[in-house]
C-alpha cells in the first residue's frame, strides 16, 4: 500500500512551489495559478486522509467543497483581473498603486 507520508510530502512540495509563485511572480494570472497549486496541495491532503474514513467520507466531501470553492474564487478573481487590465493596461500587481480617481 502507498504510505500516507508519501502523499503528504508531495502535498508539502506542491504547497511550497505555489508559495514561491505567489511571492515571486509579476503577473496576476501566474499568482492565481500559484494559489491554485496551494489549494490543490490542500485538497491532496484531504483526499489522502479521507481514505481512512469510509463511513462518513469527511475528507473526500470537503475536497469536493474545496474544488467548487476554488472554481468560484477563480471566476471572481479573473473578472477582477480583466477589470484591472482595462483600467491600468497592465496586470503586474507591483504597478497597480492607484485608486480609481
Amino acid at each position, binding site marked *: *500500500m*502507498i*504510505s*500516507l507520508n*508519501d502523499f503528504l510530502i*508531495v502535498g*508539502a*512540495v*506542491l*504547497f*511550497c*512551489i*505555489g*508559495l*514561491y509563485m505567489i*511571492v*515571486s511572480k*509579476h*503577473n496576476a*494570472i*501566474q499568482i492565481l*495559478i500559484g494559489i*491554485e*497549486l496551494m489549494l*490543490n496541495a490542500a*485538497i*491532496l491532503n484531504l*483526499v489522502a486522509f*479521507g*481514505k*481512512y*474514513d*469510509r*463511513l*462518513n*467520507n469527511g475528507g*473526500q466531501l*470537503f*475536497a*469536493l*467543497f474545496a*474544488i467548487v*470553492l476554488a*472554481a*468560484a*474564487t*477563480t*471566476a*471572481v478573481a*479573473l*473578472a*477582477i*483581473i*480583466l*477589470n484591472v*487590465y*482595462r483600467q491600468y*493596461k*497592465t*496586470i503586474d500587481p507591483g504597478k497597480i498603486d492607484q485608486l480609481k480617481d
Partner: protein
Amino acid sequence: MSLAQILFYVMGFIALASALFVAGTKNLVRCIFMFFITLFALAGLYVLALADFVAITQIVIYVGGILVLILFAFMLSGKETLNAMAQQRSKFISISKLPALLLAGLFLIVLLNVLFKVDADNLLWIKKSIRTNNEILPDAEMTQNIGINLMTKYLLPFEAISILLMIALIGAAHLSRKETRA
C-alpha cells in the same frame, strides 16, 4: 514494490516536475498548459488515494472550467502582459527571486520536519480506523456513499456552498460587464 506504488511515484514525479516547470518558465502560455498536466497528474494521485469521484470532479471542474477561464483571461489581457514579461527577462533575475526562493525553501523544511515528526502512518485515529475496518478498500464503491452523505450529514455545507456559488456567479457577471457611461 507493487504496481500502485510505481504508479504513485510516476504520478507524483509528473505532478512535481510540471509544477516546477510552471514556477520556472518565462512563457505564460507554456505555464498555463503545464499547469494542465499538473492537474491531470493530481487527479491520478487522487485515484491512487481511492477517491475516484474526487478525481473525476477535479478533471471536470479544474481542467474543464478553471483552466479555460484562465486561458480566456490571458487571451483577453494578452499583449501587454507578454511585453511586461519580456522586459523582465532582460533584468538580472536570481537576485530578485532570492527572497521568494528562501521563503519557500525554509517553509518546505518546516513542513517536512512537521511531517516526519507527526509520522502520519502511525497516528492513533488511523490505526483505529484500520482496526475497526473503517478504511476504504480498493474494491469499494464510494460514489453512492458520497451521495448519501452529501444529502444527509453534510447538507448544511452543501447549501452554504451553493449560495456562495450563486453569489460568486452574480459577482463575476457584474464585475466583467462593460462599463456604461457613468
